[in-house]
């Protein structure tokens, strides 16, 4: 729960806001605290939203308290997450963090002296992927490999979560393997998903995506793998392995639009080899999860959508 990780006064300040409209809390050391509320940024004061002068100024203690509480008072235990610059805080809440990166022999040991936190609060929006689900099935009712493209914060994770639900609604005999590396899609608590990700969905939490894709195929024999935020060459090799094994992939990637995505060198081969049959571009133009366009494997807009 969000209130379990925040200092008391911050909980009080947040209590003036509607939880469902709260998307982010941003804390920057010695700067006013701001929130993303109803898709706009505001400053946060002791009595809720306010102007800059009345905003609560973030202190080092606040940051430390949040990290300490989010790690269940065991910061050492979340070192692998800290190295990657985030912290999973349960209930799907993910805390992005910046600080001093400690390196040794070109290897990141940890991050310390944290100076900024971005607390991202997930919201399950049932039906948010309904439109997408209509165009990702082929004539035999098999799922097309689909790439969800969007800039950070446009609702890619929410769409992926709902896609798992929608796919299960359309075909109950499809086994989905959800790779929840950062535990923000299913928001597991003691191994059990706290958010709805469909009835035929198996979840692998944590670990590395490439490893989980290959092992997940061997161990769980899924029809569809859903994976968030792919980007490394290893992820892409694993995706190629999966599609060559007859498994459909539904993945998301950070990119502003289809043109920016096409410029990414890592994805050059899979675009050429038409691994993905659908590319869905999201934006926040008309609220989070706005579908800007849907393209087929030849990068042509899908007529059914238009």
């Amino acid at each position, binding site marked *: 729960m969000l209130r379990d990780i925040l*200092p008391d006064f911050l909980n009080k300040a947040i209590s003036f806001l509607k939880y469902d409209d709260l998307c982010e809390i941003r804390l920057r050391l010695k700067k006013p605290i701001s929130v993303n509320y109803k898709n706009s940024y505001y400053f946060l004061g002791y009595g809720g939203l306010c102007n800059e002068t009345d905003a609560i100024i973030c202190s080092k203690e606040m940051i430390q308290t949040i990290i300490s509480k989010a790690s269940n008072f065991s910061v050492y235990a979340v070192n692998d997450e800290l190295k990657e610059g985030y912290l999973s805080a349960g209930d799907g809440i993910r805390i992005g963090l910046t600080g001093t990166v400690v390196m040794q022999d070109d290897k990141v040991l940890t991050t310390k002296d944290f100076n900024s936190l971005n607390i991202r609060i997930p919201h399950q929006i049932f039906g948010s992927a309904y439109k997408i689900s209509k165009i990702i099935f082929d004539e035999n009712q098999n799922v097309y490999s689909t790439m969800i493209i969007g800039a950070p914060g446009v609702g890619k994770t929410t769409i992926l979560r709902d896609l798992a639900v929608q796919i299960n609604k359309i075909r109950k005999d499809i086994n989905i393997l959800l790779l929840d590396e950062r535990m923000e899609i299913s928001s597991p608590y003691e191994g059990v998903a706290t958010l709805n990700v469909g009835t035929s969905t198996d979840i692998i939490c944590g670990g590395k995506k490439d490893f989980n894709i290959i092992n997940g195929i061997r161990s769980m024999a899924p029809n569809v793998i859903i994976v968030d935020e792919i980007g490394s060459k290893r992820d892409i090799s694993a995706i190629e392995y999966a599609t060559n094994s007859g498994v459909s992939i539904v993945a998301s990637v950070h990119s502003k639009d289809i043109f920016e995505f096409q410029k990414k060198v890592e994805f050059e081969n899979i675009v050429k080899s038409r691994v993905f049959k659908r590319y869905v571009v999201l934006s926040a133009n008309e609220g989070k999860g706005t579908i800007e366009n849907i393209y087929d494997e030849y990068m042509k807009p899908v007529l059914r959508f238009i």
Partner: protein
Amino acid sequence: MIKIAILISLFLASTYLGFQTATVYDEKLKFYQDCTKFLKNIKSEISFFKTDLISMFDKFKFQSKFETLKNSIKDLYIQNKEFNIQDIKNIIDKTIIIDDDEKNKLAQMFFEIGKIGYYEQLEKISYYIQAFDEIESRVEQKKNKMMPFCKKMGAIIGVLLCIILI
């Protein structure tokens, strides 16, 4: 007859007090032995399993007053309220009588635990193991010196009281 009974009672009470005072040193030594044991245990737990703090508080049990202290501090964490180092010092005061220096170190140790990253945490624990090892040997020396002394003093005072009252 009554006088003899009073004298014997006085002697026994004084000797008992001497023995009781002596056990304080024993208790203190056991407390620090358990403290070092706890630190060594959590160091290996953190190194190999990265076990979370609350689970470690539950996992290791002790016979000395350190168990009471550990449980009271665990309660502080479970309540999930913000607390400072003074709160820990207050708990120590309620649990055992120790020197201010030792109390500060102990409070600092409990306050810092779990608040820093993996490598820093292991280094800190190693530092505290060394620090409490030193305190432990100091307390042991004092115990070896003071325990027989307190016992003897109890008996001697008892005898002296009897002589005076006769």
